[in-house]
C-alpha cells in the first residue's frame, strides 16, 4: 500500500486533512452515480421515448405514449381486456402472489419464532435448520423443488403410495401458483423468523413471570404481552415481505417459467422479457413498466421508513 500512500499524501498536502473525506467518498459516489443515479434519470427518459434503438439520442419522443399503451384497458378488473394484457396479468399475479405470500410468511415465521423462543434443547440447531435455505440461490431453490414436484417426482410417488393420483403440478394453474408461493416461503422464511426472534428476545422475561404469578393462561399472555410488544417487528416483516413479493422474479421464473400460460408470470418477468427477450426488444415500454413498479416500491419503502421510525421512537 506504499504505492497508494504516496499519491494520497500528495493529495492531502493539496486539499488539507479535512477535505480528504471527499477523496474517500469519491469511488463510491462514482459507482453510485453511474449505476443508480444516472440510470434512474435515464429510466424516466426511456419511458417517454419509443423505437428500438438503445441510445436515448436515437429514440423518438412519444410523450406519455408508453404509459397510455400500458394503461389502455377496457376494464381494469379483467387483464384480458388490456392491449398489453401480459403486463396486467403480471400485475394480477404479482398481487395475488404477494398477498398469499405475506399472509403465510407472517403466520409461519411467527409460529416458528415463538417455538424457537421456547425453552428448547438444540435451539441453535433448529434455528439453523430454518435459516439455511435463505442462503441458497434462487436457481438452486427452484431446481430442488422442480425435481420434487415433477411428474415422476418424490411428491407424486408419495401421493400414489397413499392411493392417490399423480398431479401435474406445473400444468395446473392453481397448483403452479400455490407452489410458487410455497417455494418462496420455504426459501425466505428463516430470514423473517430471525427478525421476529430478535424481537421476542427483547421482550423482558419478568413480564411473563408476572403473568405467571397472576396465573394468566399462556395463550392470553401471548395475546396481551407478546403480540403488542412484537408489533413493530411484525410490521417490518410485513413490509419487507411486501417489497420482496412485488419484486419476485428468479425463483418463480426458474420453477415455472411464468407458466402454465401466463398463470405465474410476474411483473418483473414481464419487464425483463419486454426489454431483453429476443422477439421484442421494447426498452421504452419496459422502462415505463419499471417506473410504475418503482413508484409502488417507493410507496412501500416510505411505509417501512414510517414503521421503523415508530419503532425507534
Amino acid at each position: 500500500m506504499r504505492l497508494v500512500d504516496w499519491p494520497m499524501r500528495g493529495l492531502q498536502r493539496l486539499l488539507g486533512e479535512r477535505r480528504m473525506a471527499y477523496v474517500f467518498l469519491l469511488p463510491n459516489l462514482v459507482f453510485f452515480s453511474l449505476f443508480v443515479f444516472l440510470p434512474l434519470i435515464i429510466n424516466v427518459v426511456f419511458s417517454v421515448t419509443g423505437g428500438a434503438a438503445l441510445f436515448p439520442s436515437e429514440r423518438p419522443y412519444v410523450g406519455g405514449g408508453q404509459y397510455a399503451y400500458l394503461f389502455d384497458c377496457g376494464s381494469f378488473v379483467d387483464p384480458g381486456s388490456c392491449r398489453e394484457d401480459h403486463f396486467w396479468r403480471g400485475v394480477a399475479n404479482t398481487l395475488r402472489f404477494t398477498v398469499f405470500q405475506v399472509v403465510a410468511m407472517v403466520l409461519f415465521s411467527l409460529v416458528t419464532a415463538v417455538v424457537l423462543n421456547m425453552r428448547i434443547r438444540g435451539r441453535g440447531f433448529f434455528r439453523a435448520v430454518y435459516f439455511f435455505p435463505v442462503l441458497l440461490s434462487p436457481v438452486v431453490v427452484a431446481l430442488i423443488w422442480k425435481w420434487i414436484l415433477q411428474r415422476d417426482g418424490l411428491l407424486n410417488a408419495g401421493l400414489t403410495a397413499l392411493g392417490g393420483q399423480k398431479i401435474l403440478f406445473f400444468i395446473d394453474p392453481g397448483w403452479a401458483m400455490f407452489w410458487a408461493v410455497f417455494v418462496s416461503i420455504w426459501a425466505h422464511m428463516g430470514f423473517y423468523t430471525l427478525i421476529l426472534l430478535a424481537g421476542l428476545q427483547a421482550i423482558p422475561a419478568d413480564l411473563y413471570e408476572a403473568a405467571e404469578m397472576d396465573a394468566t393462561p399462556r395463550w392470553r399472555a401471548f395475546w396481551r404481552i407478546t403480540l403488542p410488544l412484537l408489533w413493530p417487528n411484525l410490521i417490518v416483516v410485513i413490509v419487507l415481505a411486501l417489497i420482496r413479493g412485488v419484486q419476485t422474479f428468479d425463483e418463480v421464473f426458474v420453477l415455472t417459467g411464468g407458466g402454465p400460460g401466463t398463470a405465474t408470470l410476474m411483473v418483473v418477468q414481464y419487464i425483463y422479457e419486454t426489454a431483453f427477450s429476443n422477439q421484442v426488444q421494447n426498452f421504452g415500454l419496459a422502462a415505463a413498466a419499471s417506473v410504475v413498479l418503482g413508484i409502488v416500491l417507493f410507496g412501500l419503502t416510505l411505509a417501512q421508513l414510517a414503521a421503523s421510525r415508530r419503532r425507534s421512537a
Partner: protein
Amino acid sequence: MNRVARLLQIRRKSGRWHWTDIAAYSYLALGVVLMFGPVLWLVLSSFKTQAGLLEFPPSLLPMSQREVAVAGFPQPLPLFSATLDDGSTRVLAQVRRIGIVAQMVDPENPAQQFRIPIDKRIPVREFKLATENYTEPLERFAFTRFLGNSVFVTVVATLITLLINSMAAYALSIYEFKGKNAAMLMVVGTLMIPITIILVPVYLVITKLGLVNSLWAVILPGAATPTGVFLLRQYMLTLPRDLIEAARMDKASEWQIYWRIVMPLAMPALAVLAIFSIMWRWNEFLWPLAVLTKTEVHTLQIGLNAFQGELQTQWHYLLAMTVATLAPVALVFVFLQRFITTGIANTGMK
C-alpha cells in the same frame, strides 16, 4: 443418540410434559423434514444413475442394477434373480430380451442358456454412487468455465465492495464536511432501489462502457452497496477517536490512518460484509442473465438455468451440478452459521 435421548427428556420446570412442549417438538421435527428433506433428496438423487432417476416410484438410496462381465460377451450383462420353472431361484445374467421372454445365461457357466418370462425375474440391485454425474459434465460442458466465472465475479466484486464501501464509511464516520448530509441521504435513498427497476438504463450504461458480455458488467453495478456503507459506518463510529488523533500527532497520513488503523479495527464488520457480499454475488441471477448472453461468460447460476432448458432429459447432470453450486454456500454456512444469523438479526440485511 445420547443427545437425542436427552432432548426427549427435557421438559418444563414443573417436570411434566405440557402439551405445548409436545406441539413444539412436533413442529420442529416437521420443520427439519421440510427444510432439510428436499436438499437431502437432491443430494441423494444426484448420485443416481440415469436409469435410477427414471424409476417410479423412486428409491430412497442411489441403487443400481448390478452388472457382471461374462466370458464371451463384450459388454457387462445385467444381473437378475430369476425363478425357474421348477420353482428354484438362480442369479442369472440377461443376454437380451425378446418380447416378454428374456434370454439369460449363468454367469459362472455361460454355455448354459435359459429362457425366462420377464415377470419371473427381479433385478439384483446394489448401492452404487454414480459419481460420473459429477465428473462427466466437467469434460462435456463448460461447467468448469462457469465455476471459474462465478469465482472470479464473487472474489473481485467482494474485494471492490469492501474497499470502496469502507472508504465511504470511513469518510462518513470520521470527518465533518460540507455535503455530508447529502451523501448520507444518497446512501439511504438507494437502500431500497432494486436492480429490477433500473434494469434497462443500467444495461445502457454498461453498453456505453463497452462491457456487455464481460464479467465486469456483473461486478461493477452492485459494488457500491448502501447496506455495506451503513454497516461499516455504524461500526466505525464506535472506534475510539483518541486513536485517530494520536496517529495524526505521529504524522500519519489520512490514508495511513484508514488503512493501518481503522481497517484492522473494523475487521469484524468487514467480515460480516464479506460473507454477505459473497452470498449475494454467488447467488445473483437476474442481472447476469440480462447482461451476459454469451455462453463463455455465463456464471454458474445462469449456466444452471440454461442447462435445465437444454438438458430436460438429463436430470442426472443437472442435479449433480445443482449440488456443486450449492455446496460452497452450504460449507460457508456450516462454519459461519452463528456469525451469519447474528449478523442478519443485528443489521437486518440480506
